[in-house]
């Protein structure tokens, strides 16, 4: 299969490319970054695109920017991620299969759910399978190429259950709520601070916090009911800031 592997870790990318070509006869092109990936997608035809979610250099650069200057939820560019490559891939006429090849961790869990629910990605392979072999990645590539489901047990647990409420029906449902989640994720915690960086009034911010908590409790049943939703919302937004501020998510849900 013709595979585009989007991986910024040069050594890992080289290793994966060699093994996938030698052991499994795939033809692998490596893209070291998102721009590189988009360039390859515009120039060549691929059967499968293998993509990670968060790329360290992009996350580090975003964190540095966040600390050094005040960012706003409406800024054009905040954090680019592998989700951007997936949306570009989905726009291609003969859409290649997509494999998310990542290490599951708390910072990526909402991205994984979003990729499953909204971007309809069905092949998920963990980078830390334990065996050290790339056989699971090969299986995921084969499954994605044949439009079959594949999720190893390490990454599969991150995917939503059948009875889960979708992110699009909860956290991402209302435009105002999305804006407030993004403001909270950027460190604007009070109604005054949020009103300053969004086109909404303080009163609106205060009024919807209860509804936002309600939506959060649908997504995450572990979040308790409280009369003061703000601390819980702040905590959730902070620990999931890379998702709320993701450029691809913001583009699909402005």
């Amino acid at each position, binding site marked *: 299969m013709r595979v585009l592997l989007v991986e910024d870790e040069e050594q890992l990318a080289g290793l994966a490319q060699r093994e996938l070509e030698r052991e499994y006869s795939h033809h692998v092109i490596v893209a070291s970054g998102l721009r590189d990936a988009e360039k390859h997608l515009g120039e060549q035809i691929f059967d499968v695109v293998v993509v990670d979610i968060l790329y360290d250099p992009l996350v580090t650069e975003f964190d540095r920017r966040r600390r050094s200057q005040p960012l706003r939820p409406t800024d054009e560019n905040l954090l680019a991620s592998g989700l951007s490559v997936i949306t570009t891939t989905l726009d291609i006429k003969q859409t290649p299969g997509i494999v998310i090849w990542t290490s599951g961790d*708390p910072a990526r869990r909402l991205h994984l759910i979003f990729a499953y629910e909204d971007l309809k990605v069905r092949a998920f392979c963990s980078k*830390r399978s334990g065996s050290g072999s790339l056989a699971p990645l090969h299986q995921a590539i084969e499954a994605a190429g044949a439009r079959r489901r594949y999720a190893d047990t*390490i990454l599969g*647990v991150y995917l939503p259950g059948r009875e889960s409420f979708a992110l699009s029906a909860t956290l991402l449902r209302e435009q105002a709520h999305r804006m407030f989640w993004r403001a909270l994720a950027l460190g604007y915690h009070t109604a005054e601070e949020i009103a300053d960086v969004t086109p909404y009034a303080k009163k609106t911010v205060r009024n919807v916090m209860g509804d936002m908590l309600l939506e959060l409790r649908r997504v995450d049943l572990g979040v308790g009911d409280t009369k003061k939703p703000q601390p819980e919302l702040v905590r959730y937004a902070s620990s999931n800031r890379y998702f709320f501020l993701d450029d691809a998510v913001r583009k699909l849900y402005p």
Partner: protein
Amino acid sequence: MAEVPKLVLDEELARSTTRKLVATLESVALLVQAGSIALTATVDRVTTNGQLFLYALAFVHLLAAFGAHKTSGPFTRGGPWLALWLGAALLMPLVMAHLVGAQEYGASPACVQLCGYPVAPLTIIAFYPWWSLWRAHLRPAIELGILAVFVLEPLLLVLYLHENPGRANYSGVGATALTLIIAFIIGKAVGRMCAVAAEAQVRLQNESYQTLFNWLHSEVKDRLVLMRQSIDLPDDLREYVDQLEDIVMRGRGRMLLAPERVPLAELFSEQMRIFGKRLRLHAPNIGALTVRRAVAILLDQALADLLTNAVQHGADPVEVGFEVNNGIAQLDIIDKGSGFPASVLDRATTSLHRLRCTARDLGGDLHHLVRPEGGAHLRLTVPLHPSL
């Protein structure tokens, strides 16, 4: 380049901690001022118009307290707001002298009229970082100057208004001075408390950092040395890589259980990785669920114990089920091994018994379910929220 962690209590951190602590107190200070004005209007001998004026002033302070509570107070706002508050405190003795009459001002030996008014701003000024850091050396002199003005103002007024001030006048002025000096000292003590709170925070972070550093040094570094030494012995090298991976992942798992809320998928994922090498596992979809720390520790322990049990009894494959019903989390571990009697849960020496005790402490339980087709089925239940 990765950022270098900072575990130092510098002036900047101490100042920001103080600012955050004081932000919530300013409305209370204004409320206290409103109360003392209202009390003076009621108790002290003032004219009817004076009384009305004081009640109106108390009401204005009440509104200011509300405003400070909803937004921010004079110190947090800084600049003209701070000057306005201090100016009002300086003006108040003159206002009171006018309202009660020249001979009546400072007549009580207890304290001059409305002597408590400057207490709140004077206390806050003693510790709040209202002065810029780069001119910090000037601050003590300025603070003492402000304190002196507040202390001397009633005395000068008494000397000006009374032809022959008596013992009662001096006693009242002295008591006022003492009150204001004590308020200033309390302010300094509060400042020290803020610094101590920030220091405690940094100390705690330092301890966590030290634990992590020791772990990296003793466990991770040792394995790396062994790996380097066995670079030409592929079998040994593979073994050390496995050990290192386990060490790192166990450390990661411990850190995962540190915060107040724990993402459950991460916890399951880690156990799937560990036991996936030895068991064929069917895992559930967890999604975005997070659980409180105590529940996470219980579920982590349950997965580790129950899957270890399955490995020891050769009970392959194992199905791991998880669902939440009416706020109760339910973990099922079903295997096709030889099974074991339910009485194992009652034996105090077994890990399953300890697990059941912990589950019961948290309002849940551990059950051994009958499985006619053979194998074992253990079900652990625990409420997600403590109130259930």
